[in-house]
């Protein structure tokens, strides 16, 4: 992802001494503590880059937790009060100014598709790509795209030469962390997605969340055994596809770490 952003002329900087955002698991134990964890990251970002910081987070879960914290922090005084006190105890303070963005939002809306098109070296002509948004990037806060029928990833795929496949399951849940707790149910949910993708003749699925990518990709062997159906669809993070179109090397894009090898163009 860093390599892709660099190609687009944007330098990403790692948040120093970041901590875990708490994810949905923390929310189910103690909401306020989840807010505290997330706000530590926000406060650190503000310290590192001042009042105009933009925090880019590629995981839908982190994206949601951070945005939710940001909202509650500015909307509910009671939350703000508790968080401020807690942050004070570790010598931090936060003014509520950090903007949280998903890389998809940054690339499509801030950098813009014309810039993306300029950088394309090896257009992915004819590659049938499925845009999969998953849940938390557009819900519950549909900040930069529609909650029911988002289209920013579709546009991005067009702009790098890929063929977008019509795909009604765009925002259907992949099962998320259920894969660790109710494995059978989690696997079935992901299977529904893959089966539909296969039926529509997809060459590759583009995801915007690392957990979706993991669920859809790494459990394919298991699903094939369980449902007795051949799948074998590569699942790439959308920046990996971008990188391919920009002509970046496989290693830079982490394609050597993939389970399902993709036949390169």
């Amino acid at each position, binding site marked *: 992802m860093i390599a892709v952003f660099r190609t687009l002329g944007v330098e990403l900087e790692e948040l120093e001494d970041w901590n875990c955002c708490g994810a*949905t698991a923390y929310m189910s134990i103690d*909401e306020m503590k989840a807010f505290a964890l997330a706000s530590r990251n926000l406060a650190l970002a503000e310290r590192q880059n001042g009042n105009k910081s933009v925090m880019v987070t590629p995981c839908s879960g982190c994206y949601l937790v951070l945005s939710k914290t940001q909202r509650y922090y500015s909307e509910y005084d009671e939350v703000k009060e508790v968080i401020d006190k807690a942050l004070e*105890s570790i010598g931090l303070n936060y003014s509520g100014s950090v903007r949280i963005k998903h890389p998809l939002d940054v690339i499509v809306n801030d950098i813009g598709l014309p810039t993306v098109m300029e950088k394309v070296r090896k257009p992915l002509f004819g590659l049938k790509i499925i845009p999969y948004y998953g849940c*938390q990037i557009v819900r519950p806060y549909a900040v930069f795209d529609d909650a029911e029928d988002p289209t920013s990833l579709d546009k991005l795929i067009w702009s790098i030469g890929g063929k977008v496949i019509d795909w009604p399951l765009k925002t259907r849940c992949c099962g*998320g962390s259920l894969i660790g707790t109710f494995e059978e*149910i989690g696997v079935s949910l992901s299977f529904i997605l893959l089966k539909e993708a296969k039926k529509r003749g997809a060459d590759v699925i583009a995801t915007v969340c690392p957990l979706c990518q993991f669920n859809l990709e790494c459990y394919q062997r*298991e699903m094939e055994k369980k449902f007795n159906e051949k799948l074998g669809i590569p699942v790439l993070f959308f920046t990996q596809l971008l990188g391919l179109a920009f002509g970046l090397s496989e290693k830079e894009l982490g394609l050597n770490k993939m389970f399902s090898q993709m036949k390169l163009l």
Partner: protein
Amino acid sequence: MEKTQGFLKFRPEAELDLGFIDEVAKMPDGKTLYNCIQCGTCSGTCPLAIYMDYSPRRIIAMTRAGFKNEVLSSFTIWLCASCYECSVECPRRIKIADFMAELKQISLREGFYSNQFKSTVLAREFFKLVQKRGRSSEFWVAFLIYLKTNPIQILRLIPFGIKLLLKGRVNLKLERVKEPRQIKILLEAISSNQNKVSV
């Protein structure tokens, strides 16, 4: 669990906890729960509803009617993957996914689930790890879940784990923030400042 899974059409009022809804409605925007019109949009949009013992609509109805025990020991609340489909579609703008998370919190706090139940183990182990180090490790959390719930399953997962390791998709190293004590102080400050804030 057996007992709570069947239909419960009638319970004498004395056995119900009529204050339950008020307890839950203390969550942010929880008052909207009183507005539910039982249209069933949530159950219709929920991708997990078919696996649930009670549909989301019924959970809301039961919460309002005071079926506290049934609600808090249902699988439904733990099956919710927080995909927010229901919250977006709800015509009464009830934050259903947040409501489910609230029920999870109450259920954990009041000990409705045994330590053998994977979802609660996941939540707890994750919580502990982050509290201690500030960062999580998918590999160790997954390992601990299986260790605490179903150790024999680990054997089955070894090939999968090795494959993940070889591909460099998981990291065995336990990462941590520079000063893990900070996280501890931060979280403790929350518990001492907070008497279940109602917003």
